[in-house]
């Protein structure tokens, strides 16, 4: 399934491994979180890049030791109104994770900007809405009050803008 990244459709070159079964010999692979623990040696020995499929009831802290080796973290939205992955994404960014954060499941244009703001940068979007709808959705709001958000859209932080000579809240750690 193609991915939305930086407002464009790109093909997904990653191989998704199931809960059990052989790992492919080469290529970039996304494994379920459980396999990260049980097959760490085999996974470390591979040449391709590594990603993980995380649950929205898993504690982000459980990924702490793995973060430097991960290039993709996939977080699910089982329903568009199940908001747990927003907190997990933001926590992972606060922990210093700089790789791809991918939203899958019930991802809709009307939640896209919130997802961008908490640190997601890749989206499995299916074919229901045209690309143009997604592109528009990413810049619906030009401003946000909260500080420490990701600004991949055009939005400015109101409080920071009002007090421009003050210190920044945090460096934008990830350019997307």
């Amino acid at each position, binding site marked *: 399934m193609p991915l939305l990244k930086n407002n464009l459709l790109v093909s997904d070159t990653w191989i998704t491994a199931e809960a059990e079964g052989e790992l492919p010999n080469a290529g970039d692979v996304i494994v379920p979180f459980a396999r990260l623990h049980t097959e760490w040696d085999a996974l470390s020995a591979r040449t391709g890049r590594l990603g993980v499929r995380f649950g929205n009831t898993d504690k982000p802290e459980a990924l702490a030791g793995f973060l430097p080796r991960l290039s993709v973290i996939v977080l699910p939205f089982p329903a*568009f*109104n*199940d*908001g747990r992955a*927003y907190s997990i994404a933001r926590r992972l960014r606060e922990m210093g994770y700089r790789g791809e954060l991918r939203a899958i499941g019930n991802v809709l244009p009307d939640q896209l900007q919130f997802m961008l703001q908490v640190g997601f940068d890749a989206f499995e979007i299916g074919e229901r809405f045209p690309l143009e709808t997604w592109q528009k959705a990413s810049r*619906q709001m030009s*401003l946000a*009050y909260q500080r420490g958000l990701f600004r991949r859209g055009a939005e400015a932080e109101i409080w920071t803008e009002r007090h421009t000579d003050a210190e920044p809240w945090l460096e934008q750690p990830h350019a997307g």
Partner: protein
Amino acid sequence: MYRYDEFDHQFVRDRTNQFRNQAERRLSGELTEEEFRPLRLMNGLYLQLHAYMLRVAIPYGTLSSRQMRQLALIAEKWDRGYGHFTTRQNIQYNWIKLEDTADILDALAEVEMHAIQTSGNCIRNVTTDHWAGAAADEIADPRPVGELLRQWSSLHPEFSYLPRKFKIAVTGAPNDRAAVKVHDIGLRLHKNGEGEIGWEVIVGGGLGRTPMVGVTVRDFLPQHELIGYLEAIMRVYNLYGRRDNKYKARIKILVHEIGAETFKAEVEAEYAKRPHPSTEVEERELKRIAAYFAAPPLEKLPRWSPSFEEAKLANPAFARWTKNNLGPHQADGYAIVNISLKPEGGIPGDATADQMRVMADLAERYSFDELRVSHAQNIVLPHVKKDDVFAVYQALEKVELAAANYGLAGDIIACPGLDYCALATARSIPIAQSISRKFADSKKQDEIGKLKINISGCINACGHHHVGHIGILGLDKKGEEFYQITLGGSSAESASIGTILGPGFAGHEVADAIETILDTYLKLRDPGEEFLATYRRLGAKPFKEALYATA
């Protein structure tokens, strides 16, 4: 009063445009009703029994006369000429068309208002003491923090899809008029021995199906840590609050199930893990906001107003109204005027467009252009010279807004109930009307004294029946409405949840039952003792006996 700057204006404009687009996509069928529902709810639009209902946010209950006039205009142009003030210090319009909604939001934006997050599983309109900035007992005006929280919670990307709705209340006075102990988060201001101020943070209070009084997780949080600490609470709730059952999804259930100590430890751990940036911007922002809430230019007046005293002597009805409807102001020579929206036999909280305009005019002329909405569904003119109170009263009398029952038996809180609401199991309004008529005799009301009667038309408790001194809950038993009575609730600083007295009553029996309870109280009270105090001293027994012995 707070005024929007270019950023606030742009923010609300963007949001209205976004909603216009969403409503068009719904009308064209591109969005399903299921997908549109949370989007419209986060913009205050509900689908009720007969029509759409739009709930407009009145942040911390503060309005200018210009804003009140615009609310009147909306009532006339897009509704049926009236609006309903709610227990969240908001106003709702009950007869709205979906295709008009974006235009109404534009009309609100013109006067620096919106309907953002008046519904949905997000942080709702922050409420506060309706006497804020005027009350004699206040440590500091809580509204700057209210405005800071309004901005911080508006379209917060992390906390817009919470397990359930989330309500925050703030009080700056020791006498709690904002019900902070029965909110998801309640903030109460304290001053320590060194004269510094800090916030007591209370979490997990609430009404609904499982009423609970909140627990204190911090006694004295420094003001500059407020946003960071609230983010930690919200994150713990967002991650661990239950999502499997919407009746167990409020934060109070999480606090209850894992225990207050564990919950507190989770929040502290989360707070410690957060990146701790400088809070310089928040402090500067709070200072910027606070400047808008500077006290109005009050005159230096003597405490005693001869014209006010003379008017009372000459006009006993006015004297009675002043006794019940005025609150003590910080400044000598001024009073807080409480306008009761509870005329005898009326619908609690309703006001017509004409009444709104009269109140706006009075605010402009006599109260530094300010009005407040109270969570008890009344309107407040916060800064009126005692010399002017009689003129205000006369103007109110002409439009039937001079009910002298503020804080008495007739000042009933009621939800819209089955007359409007899709969730209700019974009607609330006719019950409020019948009780109001039963106690129409002003002497009797004065004799009974301070009393809070709260009525909800279903277990979701929008009428706050659990914290009424007398609470009434309307239920459905095999197609018949019946009403359960609770006694001993309170939302004040010594908050308590009321206890069910016994078997319920049919609608036509409720007012008589309330009368029996109050006659029992009058017989048993110590001199000067208020209803709640008598109940707390004697318990339910004498009331039960009186009510069910004759039945």
